[in-house]
C-alpha cells in the first residue's frame, strides 16, 4: 500500500512516562479523545447519539465526555451522515480538528461522496494548499449477528481511495496511540474500530502515547508462517498460533495497524523469514485488502515464497444474520490452523524453519 516514507506520518513515539494500566479498547479510545480534547481546544467530536445516549455513545466511546467538554464539543447531530461529514470537512479546512463518528461503518455509504470525492481529494485538488485534519471514526466488522447492513468491513474501499489514511487498531494500546496520532494528523484519517474488540482488555500506557502510522506490530514471532490480520483476525491468529505451537508450527503474527500508510517492509521481512503468508480479514475476499497484502509481498519477496500465499476472508456475500451462517461466512481460528497446516504439509518443519 502506500510507501511509509511518502506519508510524513511517521512521528516518533516517545516512551510513555507513567507506566501502564489495564483497560478495555473502548476505555482506551475514550482516554485518547479526552486527552486530545484537553490538549487542543480545536478538537471536537460530532456524530449521532454520542452525548446524551447512555452517557456517551452507543458503544461508550464518548462516555462522560459531554460532562467535561459540553455539548458544543461533544456534538449530537441529526441523522444526516453526508451532511455532517461535509460539515466536519469544512470545519477541518477552517481551523478545527473534528472527529466525526459514524455509528456503524455501513452508514458511511450515505456519506461516501463527502469522504471519497471531497475529503480524500481536496488537498491534492488544491495543489497541496489545504490541510484536512479530519478523523472519521467508526466501528466495523461482524460476529454479533447484526446482519447484512450492520456488519460490513469496509477497509478495502477506504484503502483503495488515495488521500485517506486508514487505521485498524487491534489492541487497547494501539486504539489509544493510533487515535491520538490520527487526531494530530493533518490528513483525513478513516479510523476503523471493531465492534468485537470494544471489550478487549490490555495494558495501555498512561498519558502521552502515540503509535506512529505505517509501522506494523509483530504480535508474535515465529519461523514458519506469517499471518497478517486485520482487527479481530489478529486475535484469531494468536489463538491459532497457540494451537499450532505444540505441533512445531510457529506462526508469526504481524498486525499492520494502519493500512494507509502500510508497512510493507515489515511484512516482507517476515515473509523472507517464514516463506509462507496468510492474509486474514472479515471483509469479503474479492478485491479485499488480503489480495493487496499478498501482492505487496509478491512484489517484495517472491523468491522467498515456499508456497502460494493464502487468504482467509469472508465469502463473497453479505454478512448473514443467523449464527450458523455467520460463523460459516467468517474466517475462524480453525481456518487459520487448517491453512497453516496445509502450507506446512509436505515440508519438514525443521527444514522450513531453518531457512
Amino acid at each position, binding site marked *: 500500500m502506500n510507501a511509509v516514507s511518502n506519508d510524513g506520518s511517521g512521528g516518533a513515539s516517545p516512551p510513555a512516562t507513567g507506566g501502564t494500566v489495564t483497560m478495555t479498547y473502548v476505555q482506551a479510545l475514550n482516554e485518547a479523545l479526552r486527552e486530545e480534547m484537553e490538549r487542543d481546544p480545536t478538537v471536537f467530536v460530532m456524530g449521532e447519539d454520542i452525548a446524551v445516549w447512555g*452517557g456517551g455513545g452507543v458503544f461508550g466511546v464518548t462516555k462522560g465526555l459531554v460532562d467535561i467538554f459540553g455539548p458544543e464539543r461533544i456534538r449530537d447531530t441529526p441523522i444526516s451522515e453526508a451532511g455532517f461529514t461535509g460539515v466536519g470537512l469544512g470545519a477541518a479546512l477552517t481551523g478545527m480538528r473534528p472527529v466525526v463518528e459514524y455509528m456503524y461503518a455501513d452508514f458511511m455509504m450515505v456519506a461516501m461522496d463527502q469522504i471519497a470525492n471531497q475529503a480524500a481529494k481536496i488537498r491534492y485538488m488544491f495543489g497541496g494548499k489545504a490541510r484536512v485534519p479530519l478523523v472519521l471514526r467508526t466501528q466495523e466488522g461482524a460476529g454479533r449477528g447484526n446482519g447484512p447492513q450492520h456488519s460490513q468491513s469496509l477497509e478495502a474501499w477506504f484503502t483503495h481511495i488515495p488521500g485517506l489514511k486508514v487505521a485498524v487498531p487491534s489492541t487497547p494500546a494501539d486504539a489509544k496511540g493510533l487515535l491520538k496520532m490520527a487526531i494530530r494528523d493533518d490528513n483525513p484519517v478513516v479510523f476503523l474500530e471493531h465492534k468485537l474488540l470494544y471489550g478487549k482488555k490490555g495494558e495501555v500506557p498512561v498519558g502521552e502515547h502515540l503509535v506512529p502510522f505505517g509501522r506494523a506490530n509483530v504480535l508474535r514471532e515465529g519461523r514458519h508462517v506469517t499471518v497478517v490480520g486485520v482487527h479481530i483476525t489478529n486475535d484469531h491468529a494468536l489463538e491459532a498460533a497457540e494451537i499450532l505451537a505444540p505441533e512445531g508450527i510457529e506462526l508469526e503474527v504481524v498486525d499492520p495497524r494502519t493500512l494507509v500508510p502500510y508497512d510493507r517492509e515489515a511484512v516482507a521481512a517476515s515473509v523472507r523469514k517464514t516463506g509462507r503468508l496468510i492474509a486474514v480479514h472479515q471483509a469479503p475476499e474479492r478485491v479485499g485488502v488480503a489480495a493487496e497484502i499478498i501482492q505487496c509481498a509478491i512484489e517484495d519477496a517472491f523468491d522467498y515464497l515456499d508456497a502460494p500465499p493464502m487468504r482467509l476472508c469472508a465469502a463473497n456475500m453479505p454478512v448473514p444474520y443467523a449464527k450458523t451462517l455467520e460463523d460459516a461466512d467468517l474466517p475462524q481460528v480453525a481456518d487459520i490452523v487448517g491453512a497453516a497446516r496445509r502450507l506446512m504439509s509436505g515440508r519438514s518443519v525443521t527444514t522450513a524453519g531453518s531457512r
Partner: protein
Amino acid sequence: MADQRPQGKTNAAGGRSPKAGGRKAKAAKLVETTGLRPDELIGLLQRMMLIREFEEECARLYRAGRIRGVTHTYQGQEAVAVGVCSTLNVSDFITSTHRGHAHVIAKGGDVNLMMAELLGKATGYCKGRGGSMHIADMSQGILGANGIVGGGMGIAVGAALSSKMLGRDTVAVCFFGDGAMNQGILHEVSNIAACWNLPVVFLCENNFYGMSASVEDTLACKEMNLAGRAAAYDIPAATCDGMDVIDVHLATRAAVERARGGGGPSYVVCTTYRFLGHHVGDPLTYRDKSAVDPWRLRDPIPNFAGRLVADNLATREQVDRWEAEAKDAIARALAFAEESPDPDPSNLTEDVFA
C-alpha cells in the same frame, strides 16, 4: 417539550373533516364515521393486539439472548401501522424501517415466518439471512424493512413509478420516522415523486426521538410541524393522532385515495410515542422516566377497545378473548420458530444472485 404531550387534534388534508378523527369521534358511531364494517373495525383492534404481543415476546426473547444483533420494538405505536395498512390492498406496497415488525404484521405478513427469522431459522422470512431489520414479503407488497435510516424511501417511490408506468392502480406507502426526516434521500425522492406525480404516501411516524435525538434539537421546522416540510415540494400534508387508529386510518385513506386517483404524493405525519426504548436494552437516558405516563394513558389498544365496547361493537369478554387469541398466535409462532431448523451453512452463498 410542550408539544411532546399527546394531542388528539387532526390537521385536515384532502377534504377530510378535522373532526373525523381524534377524541371527538369517540362519541360518534364508528361505523358511520369511518364507513368501515364492524368486522373491519374489530380487525383493527385484533391486529394491534397481535403486534403488541409479538413485540412483547420479541423483547423477552432478546433479553433472554435468543435474538442476535439489536431489535427495535413498537409498543405504543400500533395504531399507526394498523391504521395505515388498513387502507391498503394486498397489491399495494409498503417500505418499512428498522422498526418494521408491526408494518409487516399490519400489511398481512406472517408472524410464524417473522418469528422464525428473528430466531435465525431456515424457515424464516429471509431464511436466517436477514434478521429483524430485513423482513420482506413480496407476495404482500412488503418491500422490506431496512437497516439504513432512509434506505427504503427511494424503493417506495420506485414502486409508485412502476404502478404508474405499468398502468396499475397500486399505491406505495413509505414508512419512516421523525429522525429519518433529516436524511437527504427524503428530499430527493419527495421532489421526484412530486415532479412525476407518483402514487406514494410518505408516512412519518413522529415519536419525538430518533434514538436519543429529540425532534426539538435536530429537526428545524416551525413549531415542530414536521408535515410542514412537504410544502417545499408542493406536496399536501396532514398531521394526525398516531395514538388513534381511526384518525390514522382516515388521514391515510385520504392520502391513499388521492394517490390512487392520480392526485400524486402526500405526506402524512402521525404523532405517536414509543413506550419503550429505541431498542431492547436502550438505557433511556435521554427522556424522563415519567414522560411516557401521559402517553400510556392514550395506549391505542385499550382505548380503541373501549370505543368498540362503547359503540356496542364488542363486549369486554370478546376483547379479552381476542387478546388471549393474539397471545396464542404468538405462542404458536414461537413454537413454529423453535421447532424449525437452523440454516444449513452448506449452501452458504445461495441467494446472493438470482
